[in-house]
């Protein structure tokens, strides 16, 4: 009888040990103290921020859209905003995951697995440095974050000072349209970090009254709003010279628009226009140089 009980206790203990071993590693990570050492960032902006504050080496996983700095190319990619690969993410044993606020299901899964996460919310330009400082606090890299944020603020301040007092041209900031035509024009409309950058760089948003992050414009609206400057943003690699010329010429169809008449239609390329991270300074400088040439 006693032997049976002992055997039963032994097998129960063995089962419990196996269960403990199989427990999700992150659950153990939750009990860790100190700064996170295995970070997964699903957001290009926070990935760049971590590198800027000197914590980039702690990244063990990044999002599919992270392409800067070049060091990220060696890091495992675990999906993006809409398609995070939870299994791969968990297998990396992260002790902190940086997620978009809208990734509700992923956050629930992380909570169930006991993995801490940093909730990324972004609204306007001031949020860039604010997020950087908060992230610095969270990962235990406050001095680096403070230095990087201060540097960004100083350079943005210099741009603001340079364009101060100059008349702000009414600008149409185009995020995208159908190549080779003026169909499906999507533009800044009064809210968001690019709208803020435009104002900082000394422009006035010609759709500022709409109070939207972006708006799809009809040709009639472009004609009626009569922007003095049109700036088109292209993401990714720079366009070839002939493509730039061809796409700029497309606007000539709207001959009455002041920007077209005065040849103030500009095409700018670069990922810094879509990533509200440390490189936002480069975006602001490019816009300021176009709106108010030195």
């Amino acid at each position, binding site marked *: 009888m006693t032997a049976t009980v002992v055997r039963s206790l032994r097998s129960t203990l063995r089962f419990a040990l196996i269960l403990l071993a199989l427990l999700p590693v992150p659950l153990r990570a939750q009990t860790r103290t100190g700064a996170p050492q295995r970070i997964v960032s699903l957001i290009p902006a926070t990935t760049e921020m971590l590198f800027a504050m000197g914590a980039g080496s702690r990244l063990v996983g990044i999002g599919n859209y992270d392409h800067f700095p070049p060091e990220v190319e060696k890091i495992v990619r675990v999906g993006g905003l809409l398609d995070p690969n939870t299994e791969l993410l968990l297998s990396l044993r992260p002790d902190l995951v940086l997620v978009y606020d809208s990734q509700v299901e992923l956050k629930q899964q992380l909570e169930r697995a006991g993995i801490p996460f940093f909730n990324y919310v972004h609204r306007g330009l001031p949020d860039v440095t604010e997020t950087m400082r908060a992230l610095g606090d969270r990962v235990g890299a406050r001095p680096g974050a403070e230095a990087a944020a201060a540097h960004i603020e100083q350079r943005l301040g210099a741009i603001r000072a340079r364009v101060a007092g100059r008349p702000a041209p009414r600008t149409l900031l185009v*995020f995208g349209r159908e*190549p080779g035509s003026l*169909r499906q024009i999507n533009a800044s409309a009064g809210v968001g970090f690019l709208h803020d950058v435009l104002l900082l760089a000394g422009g006035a948003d010609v759709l500022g009254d709409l109070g939207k992050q972006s708006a*799809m414009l009809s*040709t009639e609206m472009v004609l*009626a709003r009569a922007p003095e400057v049109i700036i088109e943003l292209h993401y990714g690699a720079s366009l070839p010279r002939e493509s730039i010329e061809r796409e700029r010429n497309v606007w000539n*169809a709207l001959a*009455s628009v002041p920007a077209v*008449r005065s040849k103030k239609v500009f095409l700018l390329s670069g990922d810094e226009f*879509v990533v509200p991270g440390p490189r936002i300074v480069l975006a602001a400088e490019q816009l300021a140089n176009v709106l108010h040439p030195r």
Partner: protein
Amino acid sequence: MPAVSTPRDPGPARARHEAGRGPARRNVRGSLVGFAVLAAAAILLAPLVGSTAIHLGRVFDRSIPWAENLDAQIFFIARLPRVLAAALVGCALALAGVVFQALLRNPLASPDTLGVSAGASLGAMVAITFNASFTAFGLSPVTIASFIGSLGALTIVYGLAIARRRGASTLVLLLGGVAIQALLSAVIAFVQYLADFAQTYRNVRWLMGSLDVVSYAPIVAALLPLGLAFIGVAMLPRVLDLLSVGSDSAAARGVDVVRMERIALASASLATGAAVSLAGPVSFIGIIVPHLVRLMVGANHRLVLPASALFGATFLIACDLVARTIISPLELPVGIVTALVGGPVFLWLLFRRT
């Protein structure tokens, strides 16, 4: 002659043919004139209305240089092309809907049913996602790729028609079309999956439909396939009447069923492809307009086809007018308005009639 029917043939087609004479023919003419007047009024009046107030006098004032005449530019660049595009697209989708419904003997058939619309959409998605940059005849890469996609789907549909010659039934044609549409939709989803955020946004917006074509080049380019499609459809009224009853019955009355079905399929598919590549997949027109017209004028295709073409044009011009003014200065995608306006009107007519 594509369709042959002996003069002594009795039966419903003959009866309709007889009914097409005298007072009934005058009624047909009267109805068509009514639809034509409505369409003409829509084409003439719609460009006068929009989110910006314009003065007609300034629009046609040649003493003002073109580059300084905002009113003329709004009229001739922003409004007139989209009204003409709406007329063509509405006309084409409505005709395609009539043909598919009669041919497949299914009231739920539409220009989307056999996958041509999905083929056009796939072409557009590929062009957007892979940043196509080729242009030709003043057309954007998206428009060109969309039309190529529709031609690809049309080829598959035509293959189905050939299979039909070997004895496949209308049901097989219909189910084959549904399978092609599902397959193409899956490929569209895959291409969208490959797209980045900006491209995904543009893909989604393209799928909602837009008539803001900005220039006349896409309209002129669409005229060739649409012209061919309209010629094909012009051969069909009597054949569709007979095919609606059944292909055996049509064959018994001397219709070369295989040949006429191919003409019908090719015409309706070509019209759909040209319309979708011009404006995106504007929903509801192809299914609702034929039914609305039948509720108003009966089922005779000699009346239903031209009336649907005219009413399709009017309906889409009206929907686009609502789309570009209701939340002015912003616009709604026209596909949303066609469904929101068309659905309740259709239900009202349906229940009023029954």
